[in-house]
C-alpha cells in the first residue's frame, strides 16, 4: 500500500489550531436538549447490523474496486460507539465506507441539506455541512458526541 495514513492524520500534529477553531464553533452552536436514554434499541441495532455488513465487505484493501484502504476493526468499534452515543431523538445516519478506511455518517433531506461526518479510528471527526459549506474537524474522545455536531444533526430531526 502506497499510503497507509488516513487523509486527515496530519491534523493530529496541529491540535492547538483545532482547539481554537472548535472553541469558536462551540460559541455558535449550543446543544439545547437534555440527552435522553434510548429505551427502544431496534433502530440502533439495525444500524449496528448494517455496520457489521460494511465491515465484512470492506475489511480488505481495494474493497471499492480501486485502491481503498480497509476499514479497520478499531474504526468499526469506534463507529459503534458513535451510533450508541447518538441521542435517541436524533435520526440515525446512513453509513458509507470511504477509500481511506474511514466511515462516513450521513444525513440528507429533500431540501438538499447534507451533513457528512467521517470517523477515523482515533476518534477524529471530519465534518462537512452542505449547502452552507461549513466544515470542521473535531477530536472526539468523551462518551458524549460534541455539542457542535449534535446541533448540526438536530437540523435533520
Amino acid at each position, binding site marked *: 500500500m502506497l499510503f497507509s495514513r488516513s487523509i486527515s492524520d496530519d491534523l493530529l500534529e496541529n491540535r492547538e489550531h483545532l482547539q481554537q477553531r472548535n472553541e469558536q464553533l462551540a460559541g455558535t452552536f449550543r446543544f439545547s436538549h437534555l440527552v435522553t436514554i434510548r429505551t427502544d434499541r431496534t433502530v440502533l441495532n439495525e444500524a449496528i447490523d448494517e455496520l457489521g455488513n460494511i465491515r465484512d465487505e470492506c475489511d480488505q484493501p481495494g474493497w471499492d474496486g480501486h485502491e481503498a484502504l480497509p476499514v479497520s476493526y478499531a474504526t468499526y468499534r469506534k463507529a459503534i460507539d458513535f451510533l450508541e452515543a447518538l441521542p435517541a431523538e436524533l435520526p440515525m445516519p446512513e453509513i458509507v465506507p470511504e477509500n*481511506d478506511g474511514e466511515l462516513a455518517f450521513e444525513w440528507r433531506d429533500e431540501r438538499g441539506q447534507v451533513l457528512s461526518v467521517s470517523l477515523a479510528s482515533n476518534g477524529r471527526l471530519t465534518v462537512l455541512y*452542505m449547502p452552507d459549506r461549513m466544515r470542521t474537524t473535531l477530536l472526539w474522545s468523551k462518551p458524549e458526541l460534541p455539542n457542535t455536531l449534535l446541533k448540526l444533526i438536530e437540523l435533520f430531526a
Partner: protein
Amino acid sequence: MPLPSGLPDQVGDEESVARHVFTDRHIGSDAKDRSKKWAKAQAFLPQFDGHNWVFSVSRTLHLKDAEAIQRNGRAIGQLSGRSYKGSALLVAKQVRSTAMKSGEGGELQNLDVLAHEAADGSTPYHAHVTGFLPLPEGANMKEYFKEASMDLERHAKEQAFVVQAPPQEETGT
C-alpha cells in the same frame, strides 16, 4: 499528438469521462423512486498514487452509448476481478469548474482531467482527475476533499448515471 488509444492527448472541455463504480456502497438511490440512482461523493474521493492525489476515470469519446460505457466498465472490472455496478459521468468542464476552496470560500485550485495512458497501450482511455492540492499549512485535507467530492457528486447528478445492465445471454446462430 495522439495517445496509444488514438485519442488526443488533451481532454477537451466538452468530453465526458466515466467514473466506474464497483461497490453498491457508493451508489445512492431515491427513496421514492429506487430506479433513480447516482454516485455518492465517496466515489469521487481521491487517493494518493505515490505522487499526487487523484482518482481514475475513463474517457468516453470512443464510447457511443450507455451500453458501450457499461462494456468498458465491465471489462475494467474483469481485469482485476471486480464486479461492475455502474458509472457516473462528468463533463470535463464540470470537473474544471470544481475548486478546492479555502475556509472563506476562496478558490485555492481548480481540479483538472488529464489523460493518463501507459505508453505500451495497456491502459487505453485512462485519465486522472487531479488538482487536489495545494492546501494551507496545517489543514485537514479530508475536509477539502470531502467538499470537492460533494461538488462532483452534484455535477454528476446533472448527467445520467449508467447502471449496470444484466449480461445478455449469448444467442449463437
